[in-house]
């Protein structure tokens, strides 16, 4: 929807609208890429540069995130002939994307470089399993892990479930309400030729799938895949020369934490997540509120994470998240679709970056669905969301990405179409 009339656009606040995302790119989403994370990363970064209509010489900054499971920036830069004026490889998984976009804006603003490519490359299925099985489950338990892994409390699902379960207890949230997130995202993925899981599933399918750890069924959990993703950040002025319609960054919040980030369950309510704090940065800096957002990208490592964040960022009243995600609002054709690509539940697992890529394409009015491509190279969208059909949201002007690391840490970003 258009920006509200009372939004002050004459004095950009905290770099509001001063930076843009000009390029996005990814590899295929597979299980068994048959190549290194270096080869994956090179592929995705190259695609993002081509998407932006830039060359290697236009890129002079690089950021990446990983958790000891990927290649480093200099290898990708070297492979593609990029000479760097700045790079940094950061430790982290989910919630890193939006935080690194903020860092990119900062280093460009500081004059350290001009255009930054951010990538995440991972063999999350065939090498280092994101769910924690395989090599990661066999390392000796030492130090602070003696208070977690020694109890079989290790994977993301296991460590987040105290929050999920307590939300059901505090607010009466039902398994069926939360399962509606998977049903919605699977419907979106059925219109995404790139998605790893394209089959539509129902709430009943989710509830009938086996329990992994309560309250999570198999289909409450995201997919593990091999892939790389990349985005390019530059100044709004420089973005005028890029190939696509400008997508401007309104505001970012990066790795905002609840108290006791070392063990966030020490402070309650544990059914509230970091979005409660991040929203106090996000919305004032963006100059808009949740009611102005057309499309959300609420991180779906689990069905519950999508719901909890939408609730704590204020898209509905606290405690009404179950209702919000199950009443049709978040589906294509609904008032405010979430993760129109199918997200981490269905498209593929990229630690958040793919959800930013999807929203950039939504704001360009050019998502890569099966609609026919016109002579101008753009798709002619039908807005018919039937299986295998369109997934472009009509008139998409403002998006919000809500990144998740864990219940105690999150990041967020608002973007708009110029």
């Amino acid at each position: 929807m258009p920006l509200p009339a009372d939004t002050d656009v004459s004095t950009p606040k905290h770099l509001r609208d001063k930076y843009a995302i000009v390029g996005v790119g990814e590899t295929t989403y597979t299980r068994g890429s048959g190549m290194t994370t270096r080869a994956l990363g090179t592929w995705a970064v190259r695609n993002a540069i081509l998407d932006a209509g830039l060359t290697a010489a236009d890129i002079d900054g690089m950021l990446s995130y990983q958790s000891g499971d990927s290649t480093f920036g200099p290898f990708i830069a070297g492979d593609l002939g990029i000479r760097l004026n700045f790079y940094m490889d950061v430790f982290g998984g989910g919630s890193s994307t939006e935080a690194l976009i903020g860092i990119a804006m900062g280093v460009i603003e500081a004059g350290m470089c001009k255009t930054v490519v951010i990538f995440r490359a991972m063999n999350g299925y065939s090498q280092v399993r994101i769910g924690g099985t395989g090599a990661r489950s066999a390392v000796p338990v030492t130090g602070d892990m003696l208070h977690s892994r020694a109890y079989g409390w290790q994977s993301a699902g296991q460590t987040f479930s105290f929050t999920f379960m307590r939300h059901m207890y505090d607010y009466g949230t039902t398994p069926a309400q939360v399962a509606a997130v998977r049903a919605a995202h699977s419907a979106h993925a059925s219109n995404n030729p790139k998605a790893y899981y394209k089959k539509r599933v129902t709430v009943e399918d989710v509830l009938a799938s086996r329990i992994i750890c309560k309250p999570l069924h198999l289909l409450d959990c995201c997919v593990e895949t091999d892939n790389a993703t990349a985005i390019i950040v530059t100044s709004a002025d420089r973005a005028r020369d890029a190939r696509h319609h400008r997508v401007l960054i309104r505001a970012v919040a990066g790795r905002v934490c609840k108290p006791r980030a070392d063990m966030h369950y020490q402070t309650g309510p544990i059914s509230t997540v970091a979005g409660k704090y991040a929203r106090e940065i996000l919305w004032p800096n963006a100059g808009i509120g949740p009611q102005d957002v057309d499309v959300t990208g609420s991180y779906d490592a689990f069905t519950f994470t999508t719901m909890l964040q939408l609730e704590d960022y204020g898209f509905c009243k606290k405690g009404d998240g179950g209702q919000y995600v199950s009443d049709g609002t978040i589906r294509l054709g609904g008032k405010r679709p979430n993760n129109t690509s199918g997200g981490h539940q269905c498209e593929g697992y990229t630690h958040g970056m793919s959800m930013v890529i999807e929203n950039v394409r939504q704001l360009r009015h050019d998502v890569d669905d099966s609609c026919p491509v016109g002579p101008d190279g753009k798709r002619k969208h039908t807005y018919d969301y039937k299986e295998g059909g369109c997934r472009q949201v009509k008139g998409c002007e403002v998006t919000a990405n809500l990144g998740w690391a864990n219940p105690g840490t999150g990041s967020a970003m608002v973007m708009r179409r110029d």
Partner: protein
Amino acid sequence: MSITADYLGMSLRLDELDGENVAYFKHCAEHSFHLQQCDDCKLLRYPPTTACPWCMSREAKWAPVEGKGAVHSYTEVHHAIQPAFQTHLPYLILLVDLDTQKGKPTADEALRVVGNLVTPDGKLAPPELVKTVGIGTRVRMVFSDAGPGISLPQWTIDESATQPDKPWRYPQE
């Protein structure tokens, strides 16, 4: 010298340099639960930290703490990630509010201590016991001996406590 132990086929290691955890587990090995108590503000904290989360003091003493409380939340694991737990399914991981210092220093805070549901002799609870525990269940601390020098604080149903009529459990069994 590191202390090592084999627990359920899983390798546990306590490094000498890790002073806070060495002290914590020294008491656990004696089947006694101690937490750091800040010398300045007198608040207890869990798990071990290198300073006081409320007043930044680096000075603390280890104080005995009663291992009693109620289940604040839980998960019941049916698909083990670690090989060590594959033969113990389903198992419960409990987040327990200690009675000690509950609601302090703010109403939302508590010493929330993680552990598995175990039998009174410290073995992972069998399925029939797992089914009886949920949010609100009163529990008491016992210890699982992993090896010389390493015992893990765990939770068992408190037989002497008044239990809720029906603890809250996930609706789908």
